[in-house]
C-alpha cells in the first residue's frame, strides 16, 4: 500500500515540465485545483481534461505511472462517490430502504469522482517531475512572505526535505524489524483489534528508537557541516524564471479564464 503512493516519487526523464521552475509548477497545480472546483459543466471539464492530458504528454512520464497514484485514494473515492450517489436529495431512480439513488446524486457523484481523480493526477504530475528538494525550495520561496508573520518557512521546508529523504529508509527498516520479530514468533496478522494493537509494540519501539537515533545523528552531521539555519545561506540551485516559465504562466491564465467562461 505504502509503495503505491506516487506522491513524492521523482520520475527522472528530461522534459520541459521537468526543467520548469518549481514555483511555476506549484502555481500551476494550484490553478488546476482551483479550476476543478470552479468547473461545473461538461464543457469546462472537457477543457480541464485536455489541459491534464497535454501536461501528461509534455511531462514524458508514462501515463501508467501517473495512474498508479490513484491506488492510494481508491477507498476514499469509493466512499465519497457512494455518499454522493445515495444521499443527494432529488428525483429518485430507485430506492432500497433509506438508500435512494437520484439523478442529481449520480451527477454530483460523477463530478466528485472526476474532481478527486484529476486532483490526484494533477498533483502527481508535479511531484513526479520535481525533485523533493526543488519542491521544498519552491515552497520556501513562494511562501517566503509568511516569514514576516513569524512562520519559520526555511525550517519547515528543511524538515520536509529531510522527511522525504528518510521515508524510504524508515520503510525498509520497518520491514527489517518486522522480520526480526517474526523470527521470534511475533504475529502481526491474527487476533482482534486490541491484540493487533498490542502486537505492534515490538515493531514500534525499535522503530521509534531508531528514528530518534537517526535524528540525533543527522543533527550532529548537519552541525558539523556548518548548518545554522537559513540565515546567510546561499543556494546551489537558486530559482530563476526562464522563458518557459513565462509561457507556462500565460497558459495558466488562458486556461483559467476558459474554465470560468464555460461555467454554467
Amino acid at each position, binding site marked *: 500500500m505504502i509503495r503505491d503512493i506516487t506522491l513524492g516519487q521523482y520520475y527522472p526523464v528530461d522534459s520541459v515540465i521537468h526543467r520548469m521552475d518549481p514555483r511555476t509548477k506549484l502555481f500551476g497545480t494550484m490553478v488546476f485545483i482551483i479550476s476543478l472546483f470552479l468547473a461545473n459543466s461538461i464543457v469546462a471539464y472537457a477543457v480541464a481534461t485536455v489541459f491534464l492530458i497535454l501536461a501528461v504528454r509534455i511531462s514524458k512520464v508514462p501515463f501508467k505511472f501517473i495512474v498508479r497514484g490513484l491506488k492510494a485514494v481508491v477507498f476514499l473515492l469509493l466512499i465519497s462517490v457512494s455518499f454522493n450517489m445515495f444521499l443527494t436529495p432529488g428525483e429518485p431512480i430507485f430506492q432500497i430502504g433509506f438508500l435512494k439513488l437520484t439523478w442529481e446524486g449520480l451527477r454530483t457523484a460523477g463530478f466528485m469522482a472526476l474532481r478527486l481523480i484529476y486532483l490526484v493526477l494533477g498533483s502527481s504530475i508535479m511531484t513526479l517531475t520535481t525533485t523533493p528538494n526543488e519542491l521544498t525550495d519552491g515552497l520556501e520561496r513562494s511562501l517566503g512572505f509568511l516569514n514576516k508573520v513569524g512562520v519559520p518557512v526555511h525550517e519547515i521546508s528543511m524538515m520536509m526535505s529531510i522527511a522525504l529523504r528518510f521515508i524510504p529508509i524508515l520503510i525498509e527498516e520497518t520491514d527489517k524489524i518486522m522480520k526480526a520479530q517474526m523470527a521470534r514468533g511475533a504475529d502481526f496478522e491474527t487476533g482482534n483489534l486490541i491484540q493487533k494493537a498490542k502486537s505492534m509494540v515490538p515493531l514500534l519501539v525499535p522503530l521509534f528508537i531508531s528514528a530518534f537515533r537517526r535524528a540525533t545523528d543527522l543533527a550532529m*552531521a548537519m552541525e558539523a557541516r556548518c548548518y545554522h539555519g537559513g540565515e546567510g545561506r546561499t543556494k546551489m540551485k537558486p530559482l530563476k524564471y526562464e522563458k518557459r516559465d513565462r509561457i507556462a504562466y500565460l497558459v495558466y491564465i488562458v486556461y483559467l479564464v476558459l474554465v470560468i467562461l464555460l461555467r454554467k
Partner: protein
Amino acid sequence: MGIIRASKLIYEYIRRDEDEHVEEVNRAIDQLTVDIKKGDFVAVLGHNGSGKSTFAKQINGILLPSGGTVWVSDMNTSDESHIWDIRKTAGMVFQNPDNQIIGNIVEEDVGFGPENLGVPTDEIWKRVDRSLAAVGMTAYRLKSPNKLSGGQKQRVAIAGVMAMKPQCIILDEPTAMLDPNGRKEVIATLHELNKKENITILLITHYMEEVIDADRVIVMDDGKLVMDGTPREIFSHVQELKSYRLDVPQVTELAWELKKAGVDLPDGILSREEFMNAILPLMKKRFPDQVNLEGYCPDVGTFGTESAVK
C-alpha cells in the same frame, strides 16, 4: 605546531537524575595530549569505549572539553566565535552513512556545506564538481543516495566535507558498517585525498588492516593515549596491542609467532611482501635446491633491524 593539538584534554559524560543531581560521571578522555602534523595520515585505534570517538567529536567542536584545550589550526575550540571556522577547517565524517546525508540527490548533498557557508552559487558548483571528482563519484551525481552502496555513500559524505575546503578530515569509524569491498573503497579514497590534495586525515577505526599504510598510529585505551608511533613500531608490540583488546593483521601475527619461536625475522612485519622477503632466504637455506627467490626483492624490509624501522 601541528594542525590539531590537544593539551591535557579531559572530557566527562555526566549523567544526571531528574533533579539535575549528578548520578554518574564517566571520564571518556583522560589527560590526552597529542599533536597532529599537517599533511599526515593518522590512524587512531582503540576498542569500543576507549574514548576515540569522543576525541573525534572534540576536534570540530561538537563536544567541548571538560578540561584542557583543543586547538584546530591555532583556534581554540572552546572559543565560540571560531566555531564555524573550526568546523570548516576540520571536516567530519561519521559512522552511519545513512544518517549524515542530507540531500535527496548526491550533488545537492555535496553542496550542502558550501551553501551553509554562504559560498556564491558559481563557486558552489565548482566545488561540487571538484569534490565529486576527487572521491570518484562524478558518475553518480544525479542519483538518489538511497540507491548507493555503503562505500559509495561514505564517499559522498567525504565529498560533502571536501566541498567545504577543509585542511583536515576526521573520520569516526567510517567503515564500521561497510562490507570488505566498501571498506577498501573508502580507505583508498582517503589515501588519495591525503596524497593528492594534501589533506590531513585522522582515521578512527578498529580494523587493523586499515592502518598499515598510515603515517602514524595512535592507540587509545580508557581515554588515555597508550601507544604512538609508525605502524611498524606499533605492530611490533603484538602482546601489548592484545592487552588493549586489539588485533593485528594475520601476517603480522604469524611473523610475531615465528619470531617468538626463535625464527630470525624483523619486527613489525606489515605485509605479505615483507613476510616473503624475510622468510624466503631462510627457506632457501633449508631447501637450497627447491626454493627459488624469483621476484624476491631484498630492498623492502629485509631482516636486520635498521631497515625494519624504515
